[in-house]
């Protein structure tokens, strides 16, 4: 037996969170900086993400006390300590479940999860996929450095096969997860990928993620200079990045590589009729090239995640040479927490009397008898 649930109301992810009054002085990055000394390794990509977050949070215009950051365990998990908001540094892999409790019990909070590839995809994999399918209103920042940092350098669930680490001296045997493919498979409504060192792109993606109502998953390629240095050089180096990054912009043809005759990237994506997926082609007017008109236009809002999934498969599973970057999917679906609150509102509609009076009615109901 099923019942019809309310349809989604198009709302921003932060719409119900109190904002600063017009008279109040706007907040700055400094207002979001706690008095705790930051203790990541020199050169760690986490610094760049922290700076970007501290820099962009004021732009949301929210009251600082209505923002909550929750983390699990790992290098990235120290993140909440450095932000002057409410925060919890919880236990390994469980941050999405704790954030689910926060978001479901309070509609007036902007809820953020900071996690890593080990925390989110290994020990906490179950909570991640279930948060995504439920679509709880929160933003998950998945710092992917493809290595275990805090435990000093074992391979992670996103490490390439054959990786030589302390725990795999003859090479790792596991096939890695692609976090974007995983999230799309888990019915996520907002999935994006960005890079720690590209502050502008990172900020744009985070803003879209915060404004998305539902679970937003943002994979951030993050360099670990100690245990996996250079893992993302292909997408970071000015020399290689134009060839390595497949940029995803909603409504734009997916073109990359050195500029072609029309000034856009000389390569592009088309649908591959042979596989049903997508493939990379040379774009141009030559016989062995594909016309610019036939290049796939990115549609992050498509109700069907099939193409987004196909695009996510262009990410290298091995050493990274190529990766789509941007917002893969951004669609509207009712959130678990909104629906849960709606059921409470519906149940309470028309109910009269104080909670105490109703409690007396509840426990005094049923077949009763009185002893005088």
């Amino acid at each position: 037996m099923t019942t019809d649930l309310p349809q989604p109301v198009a709302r921003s992810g932060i719409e119900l969170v109190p904002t600063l009054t017009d008279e109040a002085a706007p907040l700055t990055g400094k207002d979001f900086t706690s008095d705790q000394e930051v203790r990541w390794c020199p050169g760690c990509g986490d610094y760049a993400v922290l700076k970007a977050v501290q820099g962009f949070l004021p732009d949301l215009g929210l009251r600082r006390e209505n923002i909550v950051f929750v983390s699990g365990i790992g290098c990235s998990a120290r993140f909440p300590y450095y932000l002057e908001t409410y925060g919890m540094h919880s236990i390994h892999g469980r941050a999405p479940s704790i954030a689910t409790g926060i978001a479901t019990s309070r509609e007036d909070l902007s809820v953020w999860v900071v996690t890593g590839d080990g925390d989110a995809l290994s020990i906490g994999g179950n909570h991640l996929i279930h948060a995504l399918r439920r679509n709880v209103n929160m933003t998950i920042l998945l710092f992917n450095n493809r290595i275990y940092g805090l435990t000093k350098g074992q391979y992670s669930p996103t490490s390439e096969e054959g990786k030589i680490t302390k725990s795999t001296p003859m090479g790792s045997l596991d096939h890695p997860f692609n976090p974007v493919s995983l999230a799309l498979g888990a019915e996520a409504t907002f999935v994006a990928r960005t890079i720690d060192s590209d502050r502008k792109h990172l900020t744009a993606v985070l803003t879209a993620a915060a404004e998305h109502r539902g679970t937003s998953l943002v994979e951030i390629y993050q360099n670990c200079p100690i245990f996996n240095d250079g893992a993302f050089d292909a997408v970071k180096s000015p020399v290689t990045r134009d060839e390595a990054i497949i940029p995803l912009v909603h409504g734009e043809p997916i073109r990359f590589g050195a500029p072609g005759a029309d000034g856009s990237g000389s390569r592009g994506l088309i649908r591959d009729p042979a596989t049903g997926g997508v493939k990379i082609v040379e774009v141009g007017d030559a016989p062995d090239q594909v016309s610019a008109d036939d290049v796939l236009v990115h549609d992050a809002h498509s109700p069907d995640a099939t193409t987004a999934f196909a695009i996510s498969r262009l990410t290298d599973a091995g050493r990274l040479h190529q990766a789509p970057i941007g917002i893969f999917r951004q669609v509207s679906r009712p959130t678990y927490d909104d629906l849960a609150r709606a059921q409470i509102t519906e149940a309470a509609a028309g109910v009269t009397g104080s909670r105490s009076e109703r409690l007396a009615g509840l426990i005094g109901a049923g077949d009763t008898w009185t002893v005088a």
Partner: protein
Amino acid sequence: MSKQVKRLDRVIIRFAGDSGDGMQLTGDRFTQESAAFGNDLSTLPNFPAEIRAPQGTLPGVSSFQVHFADHDILTPGDAPDVLVAMNPAALRANLGDLPKGAAIVVDTHDFTARNLTKAGYAANPLEDDSLSEYAVHPLDLTGMTVEAVKEFGLSRKDAARAKNMFALGLLSWLYGRPIESTIAFLQKRFAKVPDIRDANLAAYRAGWNFGETTETFVVSYEIKPAPMPVGTYRNITGNLALAYGLIAGGVQSGLKLFLGSYPITPASDILHELSKHKAFGVTTFQAEDEIAGIGAAIGASFSGSLGVTTTSGPGIALKSESIGLAVMTELPLLVVDVQRGGPSTGLPTKTEQADLLQAMFGRNGEAPVPIVAPRSPGDCFETALEAVRIAVTYRTPVMLLSDGYLANGSEPWRIPELSELPEIDPGFATEPNHVVSLRDGSSLASSGQVSPSTNGASADEKREFWPYLRDEQTLARPWAVPGTPGLEHRIGGLEKGDGHGNISYDPANHDFMVRTRAAKVERIAESLPPLEVDDPEGLAKVLVLGWGSTYGPIGAGVRRVRKAGYHVAQVHLRHLNPFPRDLGDILERYDKVLIPEMNLGQLAMLIRARYLVDAVGYNHVRGLPLKAMELAEAIGNLVADAEGIEVDLSDPVDATTSGTAGASGTSGTSSTAGDQR
């Protein structure tokens, strides 16, 4: 034909049949009728873990035992006076529990060669003399049911399904039960399927009428209402009382209730019940696993709700790390463990109390958690409220240990007045509680609440919020919820610095914080009332100490010993951690301490370690409540030992309470001699 009515003081009936025969419903209805009549009662449902075990087999037998009386009783009874057996397997599976002379009402319909074989009978026991020691009433209940409902045009299978109502009608007549509540129940339950409703009603009435007209039963019985304290009563199971207690905890504290839970036997009914009460602002979250259930509850508590998670022993094992997080972050949280037989998957539908040490110690590090345990189904309500009081007042996870017997068993419960319930003040932090000098960073003032008038910060001072500054009396830390301006702070699983709550690896701080968390839990004992020592003449040398659901059997055992003329004292613990302050002194007053438990001696281990008392265990782990009569023997032996006397409990039943207990037609001494006043 007018029939003789005989008066009894109490009866124990066991309804037994196939898992699909509706025995739990039948027992529940008989219980409700008895409750409405005003008897005291106690029930013991017993069913297999399989939803539908193979039909007609011994593993598929489901039963429901109800003990009802004209006086205050404590247990569902050791042995039934009457067995209602719906098939050969039900007869065979339960026969061993029957005392000689017990009555057996048996449906002969399924006593076919095939079903007899399935039940392991080589010959039909109804046709040889193997049941000669019992008063057997072989009746074709199924056949009579089909006949009674034929006008409704049901298939033979559907018609036969109403046989449990025929049996209920018959037993209701036999013991003079009021039938109105069951008629109303059936009308409501099957309102949408009129032919099924009418068939059940017809079968129920037919059973009653059969009893009145048949010559099989020449006597019916009367069990007068039991005198009970003034008040309004209802019959209640432990899980329902616990759910109500949680809702009451939310109301009394003014907090929203948030349940994060994963279905598990025998705790799921609490999730089911709470999910019906959204109008109270109750949020129920069925999580992806046990860990997510408690994780969400912790998140809700952090956000200012009353976080609750409900589970059974295997779930506690999965939640251990999260409970540790709640200990470290010092957030209010309720962890309900409806214990079942273990280890591992164990006996999912059977009772046990072997999770005490898991509750006490089952975490990494020094992670003290207060523990409370209800003593009876109705007591689950009050104990849940007490758990809420402790969790909210002391900012701590609290473990509530119920068990399968309490969860599914029922008893009459006096519905409390709201004025009897405790007020619980969450006392949220609203303001900074600490002032520092901006010149040198030194602390200038700290308090629970730094008020602007007395501790206003001047130009070279800054007001801060310190999440680990403690209340002097309770040692509780402030509960500052997101959305409170100026109190932004971070908590987590890493060790916290005293006061300011920042990460601290300082050795002396860790030592201090470990001791402080322990001291905080110990501080709860200051808020507990003195223990009730039941030692009527103050002459006992033997003390029986218990906890949780053994209260009934222990009380019944103690009564039996006293009835036989001996002295014994009883103390029952609701608080297992911390122990009440006066427990040590009480233990010292007795020469011998007996600790009956449905485990191998877990409370005994704690008592011996804490008080250096040479307590003696009485331990059974059979998946069933302790038997009062056997326990009485153990108490008697210890009394004999302590007082150097001979103890004889053989005939504790006086003339006024002896006699037939059921439809046996034979006279004899009741076999279940516990539970006498």
